[in-house]
């Protein structure tokens, strides 16, 4: 036994020594290799462009409908710039883990070389922390690139300080999606105003068809639209920072009215957005409030039968009935770390310009059905998507959703109030006051 343990000990010491030696050897070798590489790099620079490795982080991965179009755009770039290798780093935008990753990366010195992320309150943290480059000068210096964008897209990309930090690609709109077939079968008019909407709700719920498929918990789009139509674009954009706009509570009063008429699915308190979208897609529901990105997930039959209109003005609301929630909610950010890196700067700027050129914007927009940030013709989309573009183009105003105007915790409080207000546990006034309290605590 003693012998055995001694043997073991010996072998360990030997192993440890061996490790040390080989370790130091290899590190020396690494050093040499590194020097060699540096030398060859410099040599290359004299002859040809030095190899550059760029990490592009985006949400064009997994089940994203623009995944292939985006990979193609990257391949095009590497084909014309053979010295550049691109790591296409992606993560699904479906849950909050993606926000956590981006913010942690930006906060811990692990910035990607090009970042595709939300514009607005979501980006405020790293924009204010001076982690990304304002693109204004770059845009002005290259009129061809700048003129590729439609001006309103660049306006949407502005942060509160007036600078543009993100180059937009495609935008989105939210709307009241209507299954025309169900409406025709029941002899109903399109719900273009509140009376028509409530009339449709009454008829449909009496027949056992779900009138408006939305969940209570993930009621983002219902809240966003009803607050916009209740408070109007100006009242909505003020948020809750400087006091309560009394019109906001009309949004919750309207939700209660709809609930009392039987507008929502019976199980609205227990389902999520996927399930409520499912009800609309399967033709069980006549209407839903969703974003343009949802169209791709519906059955072909529903896509053919659907159209989209703005949510009508709620009773007493200041909205015109033609105000649309939408915008250019995301774009490419250029982190300062790479911009100050002389070896990478030129390549990454060229890549940014390539990825936001009208040709690529057209391809991505065709793939994901978003509104293009460039003035390009999109073809081959379902009629409902074309209706959506027309709705956005003919609208009185386009406002970014109210969740970009208040703190995340505030918006979640507004969400939590939906079920309580419609079931009568809270008054609309209490709902807004409770949100205001959360907003104040967040200052």
């Amino acid at each position, binding site marked *: 036994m003693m012998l055995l343990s001694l043997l073991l000990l010996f072998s360990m010491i030997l192993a440890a020594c061996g490790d040390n030696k080989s370790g130091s050897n290899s590190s020396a070798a690494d050093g040499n290799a590194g020097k060699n590489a540096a030398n060859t790099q410099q040599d290359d620079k004299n002859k040809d462009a030095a190899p550059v490795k760029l990490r592009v982080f985006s949400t064009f991965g997994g089940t994203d409908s623009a995944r292939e179009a985006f990979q193609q755009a990257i391949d095009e770039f590497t084909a014309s710039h053979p010295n550049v290798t691109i790591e296409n780093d992606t993560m699904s935008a479906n849950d909050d883990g993606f926000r956590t990753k981006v913010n942690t990366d930006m906060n811990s010195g692990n910035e990607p070389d090009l970042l595709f992320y939300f514009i607005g309150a979501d980006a405020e943290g790293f924009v204010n*922390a001076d982690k990304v480059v304002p693109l204004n000068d770059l845009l002005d210096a290259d009129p061809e690139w700048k003129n590729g964008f439609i001006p309103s897209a660049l306006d949407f990309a502005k942060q509160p300080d007036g600078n543009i930090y993100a180059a937009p690609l495609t935008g989105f709109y939210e709307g009241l999606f209507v299954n025309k077939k169900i409406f025709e079968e029941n002899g109903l008019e399109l719900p273009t105003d509140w009376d028509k909407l409530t009339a449709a709700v009454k008829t449909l719920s009496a027949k056992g068809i779900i009138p408006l498929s939305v969940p209570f918990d993930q009621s983002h789009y219902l809240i966003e639209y009803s607050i916009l139509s209740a408070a109007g674009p100006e009242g909505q954009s003020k948020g809750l920072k400087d006091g309560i706009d009394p019109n906001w509570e009309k949004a919750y009063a309207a939700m209660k009215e709809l609930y009392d008429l039987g507008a929502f699915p019976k199980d609205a308190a*227990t389902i*999520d957005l996927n399930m409520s979208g499912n009800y609309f897609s399967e033709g*069980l529901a006549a209407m839903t409030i969703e974003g343009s990105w949802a169209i791709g997930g519906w059955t072909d039959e529903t896509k053919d039968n659907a159209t989209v209109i703005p949510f009508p003005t709620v009773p007493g609301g200041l909205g015109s009935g033609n105000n649309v929630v939408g915008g250019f909610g995301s774009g490419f950010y250029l982190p300062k770390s790479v911009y100050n890196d002389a070896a990478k700067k030129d390549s990454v700027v060229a890549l940014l310009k390539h990825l936001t050129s009208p040709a690529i914007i057209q391809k991505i927009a065709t793939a994901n059905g978003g509104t293009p940030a460039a003035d390009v013709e999109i073809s081959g989309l379902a009629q409902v998507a074309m209706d959506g573009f027309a709705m956005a183009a003919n609208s009185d105003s386009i406002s970014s959703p109210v969740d970009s105007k208040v703190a995340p915790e505030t918006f979640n409080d507004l969400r939590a109030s939906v079920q309580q207000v419609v079931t009568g546990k809270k008054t609309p006034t209490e709902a807004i006051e409770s949100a205001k309290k959360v907003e104040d*605590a967040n200052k």
Partner: protein
Amino acid sequence: MKGDRKYIFMFLFPSALFLTVFLYYPFFKSFYLSFYRTKGFFDKKFVGWDNFERLFTDKLLGAATLHTLELMLYVLLFQVGIALVLAVLIEGISRFKDFYRTVFFFPVVISGTAISLLFVLFYNYNFGLLNNILANFGIEKIFWLDEGNALKAVAIPTVWHYVGFYFILFLTAMSKIPADYYEAARLEGIGAIKRTTMLTIPLIMSDIKVVITLAITGTLKVFEFVWVITSGQNGSEVLGTYMYKKAMVDQNFGYGSAIAIYMVIFGVLLALLANRLLKRDEITY
């Protein structure tokens, strides 16, 4: 022996380092963050004891604590209870032992999220499995996830998922009991029920204690079942999901951290209490 000590430390060091980096550092960082009001990832402001004061006035947290305790009751009664009954039954049979052991242990291997998604489809009001069965019998559909049922509906997969784990622990404990005890019992003419309550259970009491402690601390960590099936709606919010909502969804890491600290203290207290209540002399055989 003295010479070995160096190596013992050498071998303990990696895991100590690992725990420090991935457990103790985050814990103390949470403690530090719980004194701040955070806004996203970049701004934070020192607020002293504000977050902890909020803990005591937060009705939602109180509700989440009660829901967690209710879930814990179900887990202790049914998870530990069923596991014990199954183990006693399996111990009593001689054939197909391995088969049953595999069958009962199997759910532990499946990921909790997958099980939860399965149950989402069972419970759905419009085209869920359960309501379809009811509809076939002409019974009115039931809201399986409404305020009265949501927590119980979540408790079922939670309990089911881990029964097998405790079952295996009990079975292992029982296999350590010397066979001559049972032989003596048989010679005395003692029946199966009496044998179980007077012999088997007292002899594995120390293992039952371990299992109860594991079940209590495990319930505090329940997250995926609630998150996927109800996302904390309709009175099914538990501490794990509430903390996640505050920290990740609301991006209020300060308050989220305060809740995490509260959960740790709460868990330690409960585990100590359970140990005190179950205090017994250790049995050696």
